């Protein structure tokens, strides 16, 4: 079966906005990420299971408002006893699901229900500020946050500080709107669609 990424017909490659006479290094870079495994892990309220004992892809479950990551997998804190796992290893869920018995945990594959847009560049914070009320100066690599962007519920994963890079997740059905909002916010700085 052929699958299409959510921005397949929307995201365009090339240079856009006010990019002329600007150093290419300073332009924002926008990319859609697809072909990732995404699953949600929830520990039931009635469970006393000690989550510190568990690792996924050798990563601990992160503390509130934090992420933990290695080269293939990122785990984001979503709320109390609730995490989102994103991995380029598409077999990860199959390998790890034995660790989570269904008396204590719910594991849900939501790989096809999200749109992910990665933004890179010195002006990334400015783009986020245009639509999102988070106090962005305090958020650094290793942090993650649920919030809103122009009214859409999003998750922001702060990937790195140098170069500045973040990933924004929305529901797939909001992907086109989010892409439009983000690229519109980028126009005055100029951006490269990758």
């Amino acid at each position, binding site marked *: 079966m052929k699958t299409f990424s959510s921005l397949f017909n929307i995201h365009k490659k090339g240079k856009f906005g006010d990019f002329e006479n600007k150093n290419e290094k300073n332009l924002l870079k926008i990319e859609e990420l697809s072909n990732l495994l995404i699953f949600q892990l929830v520990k039931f309220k009635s469970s006393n299971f000690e989550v510190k004992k568990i690792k996924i892809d050798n990563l601990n479950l992160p503390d509130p*408002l934090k992420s933990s990551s290695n080269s293939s997998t990122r785990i984001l804190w979503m*709320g109390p006893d*609730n995490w989102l796992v994103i991995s380029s290893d598409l077999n990860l869920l199959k390998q790890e699901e034995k660790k989570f018995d269904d008396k204590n945990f719910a594991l849900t594959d939501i790989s096809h229900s999200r749109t992910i847009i990665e933004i890179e560049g010195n002006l990334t914070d400015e783009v986020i500020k245009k639509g999102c*009320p*988070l106090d962005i100066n305090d958020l650094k690599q290793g942090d993650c*946050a649920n*919030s809103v962007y122009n009214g859409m519920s999003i998750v922001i994963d702060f990937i790195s500080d140098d170069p500045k890079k973040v990933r924004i997740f929305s529901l797939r059905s909001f992907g086109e709107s989010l892409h439009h909002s983000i690229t519109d916010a980028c126009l005055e700085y100029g951006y490269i669609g990758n």
Partner: protein
Amino acid sequence: MLNIKCPYCGDRAQKEFAYGGDGTVKRPELNKEVSNKEWDDFVYMRKSLRGKHIELWHHISGCRQWFRAQRDTATHEIFKTAKISEEI
């Protein structure tokens, strides 16, 4: 913009929250005979206080948790927020 301190996430903008109404209303006891009046009071009847009020809020575009807040309905000042399991 009004900032609300989620007990799980800290200070966040009001945009991320949904208002959940009076935080002091108690459901009639389970499996007990309930009169129409009691049920009516529980479902519909609310005071509209001026001053300090205990409210439910939902961090719907955040950690998705419900919590209680003590807010002044005249000044919008929020004095305190607490998890549902905690006293306020």
